[in-house]
């Protein structure tokens, strides 16, 4: 059917039931085979909007390991499939042209960034945390009461981190005695 319509030129198709050529006769091959990319996606997963705290449900469509569409999840009792402009822009957020995917390092006093491998960066940061911790450790108060902490390190977390991430951060830095673990809630 489709193939037949494609070989018949619109001009002739006009003769069959669409004399003015305003409808079916004008339909192009592309229009004929058009399919939404939600249909052609490899998979769809249920997610939650990363912006405000309403917690709207999102459906994330993936093709070739890339997010191709994010839209509201109609199953959600919170949002009933609806999204605000920020939520609706989530695909553009994860695929933003400005997104940086390389580690960057700026040495003291340098005028610009340098490249650095992730492993090296992790190692260097580990060293610095250990060093700073030793340098600024407070074992006890003047009265000899236990402090067991460092105030030489300040952590400021955003509020878009997952609960599990926050848990491990609080757990580890507490174990390290790094006391001042703070987040957006304070701001």
């Amino acid at each position, binding site marked *: 059917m489709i193939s037949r319509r494609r070989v018949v030129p619109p001009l002739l198709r006009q003769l069959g039931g669409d004399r003015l050529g305003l409808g079916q006769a004008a339909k192009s091959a592309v229009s004929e085979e058009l399919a939404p990319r939600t249909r052609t996606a490899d998979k769809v997963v249920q997610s939650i909007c990363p912006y405000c705290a309403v*917690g709207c449900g999102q459906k994330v469509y993936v093709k070739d390991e890339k997010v191709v569409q994010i839209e509201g999840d109609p199953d959600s009792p919170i949002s009933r499939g609806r999204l605000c402009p920020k939520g609706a822009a989530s695909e553009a957020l994860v695929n933003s042209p400005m997104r940086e995917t390389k580690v960057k390092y700026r040495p003291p006093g340098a005028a610009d960034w340098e490249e650095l491998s992730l492993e090296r960066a992790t190692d260097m940061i580990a060293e610095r945390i250990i060093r700073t911790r030793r340098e600024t450790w407070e074992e006890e108060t003047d*009265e000899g009461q236990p402090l067991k902490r460092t105030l030489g390190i300040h952590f400021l977390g955003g509020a878009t981190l997952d609960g599990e991430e926050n848990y491990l951060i609080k757990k580890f830095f507490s174990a390290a005695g790094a006391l001042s673990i703070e987040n957006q809630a304070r701001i």
Partner: protein
Amino acid sequence: MGSNMAEQHPVGFQWVIEAKERGAKVIHVDPRFTRTSAMADRHVQIRAGSDIAFLGGVVNYIFERDAWFREYVQHYTNGPVILKPDFQDTEDASGFFSGWNSEHSAYQIDTWGYNKSTGEATAGKSEQQADVSGEQAHGAHGMKLSAGQPPDIDDSMQDERCILQMVRRHFSRYTPEMVAETCGCSAEEFLEVARALCENSGRERTSAIVYSVGWTQHTTGVQNIRAASIVQMLLGNVGRPGGGILALRGHANIQGSTDIPTLYNILPGYIPMPHPQSHPTLDTFVELNGPDTGAWGNLRPYIVSLLKAWWGDAATEDNDFCFDYLPRINGDHSHYAMMLKMLDGGVKGMLCVGQNPTVGSANSKLIRLALAKLDWLVVRDFQPTESALFWQDSPEHESGEVRASDIQTEVFFLPAAAHTEKDGTYTNTQRLLQWHHKACEPPGDARSDLHWIYHLGKAIRAKLADSEDPRDRPIREVTWDYPVHGPHDEPDAEHVLQEISGRRPDGSFLESYDELLPDGSTTCGSWIHCGIYKDGVNQAARKKPHSEQNWIAHEWGWAWPKDTRMIYNRSSADPEGRPWSERKRYVWWDGDAGRWTGLGDSPDFPPEKEPGYRPSRRAKKMEAIAGDKPYILHPDGRAWLYVPTGLVDGPLPTHYEPQESPFSNPLYAQQQNPTRQVFHRPENPYNPTDGEQGAGVYPFVLSTYRLTEHHTSGAMSRTVPYLAELQPEFFCEVSPQLAAERGLEHGGWATIVTARQAVEARVLVTDRIKPLHVQGRAMHLVGAPYHWGGVGIVTGDSANELLPLALDNNVHISEYKVATCDIRPGRRPRGQARLALVEDYRRRAGVKS
């Protein structure tokens, strides 16, 4: 009030529209006419920072009209409780409560307690002298009441010293006329709101109050919310469908970041961090922070299970379950306190994870100067933010104050994974945890924060593996082995959630925190989340379509505690356990079945405790909570009209002027909140406030806020093409009157000046900003959305440059919503000239710098 719901929570606002369609009345009380006001039946414009005066007026109105919900107040609140004879109200002490210690500029709160009770102030008092905040004074935690009974009660609530009468007296001067004078609205407008609230409350009807950072970001932030809770308790609007005080939070997991805190002063589940002087051992910690009665009576099982989750086998009965591994707090170690310490060189390293303080925090310049003092800075985000680039580009670079080469801070930028690139939970604004599934791998070096902290932790542990240093033992012994998967060894988030939920001795998953044991045989990373993995099922990942269940949607996600969708819902039934009305039934007592039942939510109450239950004299913990006391987190099971312990700035809300205000306090001799945190130093100058020399140099009120089209510092919106184009430039909103007075041209440029900074913005002249008449003078508001900065598809000056640090000492949140400023036509000067302009203003205002 204090919320711009239609703009900041548009999808949540669908429920407001729906309620409205069903006949609900929507009233918006706000300094600005916003998109929320446009949808409301009524918009009442009040002066920024006058919310307590307005709500106090409502309280006064409720008493005047005798509109309070007697039965609810008598049984469910501490209204009948008699206070200590030596407590003095602000009415008697010209703006101060009893116990003011001007030397520490802090309160000693031992006079604030229930009459004949002991110990409730212990925590509070000692903390006050240590000058730490109410949060660290541990709210109700310290309160001791035998059998959960306030010792001295007058159920008739006629006694002069009973809380209800105290509250009545405290607000007796908050008359409609006083409200009008203080807030700038008309007495009629106020009365409409008060009447509407009262008429829509009671057995048959309920009213809800919605707030956001419009209330928290003040030097009286906590008391703003307290004032609302007094209104709602008096009207019986808490724990009932259609009622409550709804805190609309601004970030996907900001609620979760408080429940499982990345906050210095609490442990998961709001367990306080220990203090050096008062908590040498686990026993003293539990003794001082765990009341004998109520849900907090089980503090020991909660913290022991947490310590076991963290230090596993290393945590034993003999070593106090590694209690002394926990770092101690003895002061304000919050964000701003640390930034000031940083400025003085006391902080060597900082990690900004998904946070952009040079745009999002107040007094951006101070923040940048502080960052420049660091040895090292780690920033994890989608792209280098203004904070990650502070060494390269800033107003100080433009003015020549600093050069990149002068800044010795080492900076690491680590690209972060997006929500679609990782598994995990977000806790929404109603305590609902929702799991989001990973859709694909993060690009390039981008990793989840879970991956980052886990592998960073492993690296540090490896380096310290054979350290003999006892201070390294907590790191060496912390349980840190999570299964990993995928090409990047991503830790299994679900496994972390299991640890949070907790396990029984036999390793099976716990049902609820009632099962937690004090002997170290159970583990639980966060007692309030206990059961989120019950039956070995990720309850947060439940996604049964709402169309297949009732409106409570109990099978979608999981809410702490115990999957309770509406907290304190026992109060939706009367003391005998019957619904207050057929129309408003939610949870009620089923006498035949001998248990609490309802529309489908979990009762936030012991399921089989009948309404008539009365505790024995020796009862402790939950046994001490009577069958008609819904507020189980409080040792007396009552909601607190009056807060005997836990707050640093008073047991009752009191109107104080903002740190910077063009007006004097019409209610009290004391101008500002006496306990507010201010930092007098050159980097943080304050504009003179009314009555002080030079106040007229900054004659207008400045308020910063957000727009629907952007997200906080813009790091998640100015970099997104489709959002950037919607609000492409920093603009300010002014009234036609102010525009005329200052010669501002609609669509042109204006420069806004404070003692901190001068920024430029496009001008939007609009009738939506209305001058108010306050104390016989016109009050002009300059509205400034704060989303812009130097990085992004669209850029601009940042409004937060203008703000000082002035904090609510309960929670250390700064006053973003009110400051004073001047505004002038045209773009700001560049380079040195910009400094000169700010300096000139300071000189004229007599601000030292």
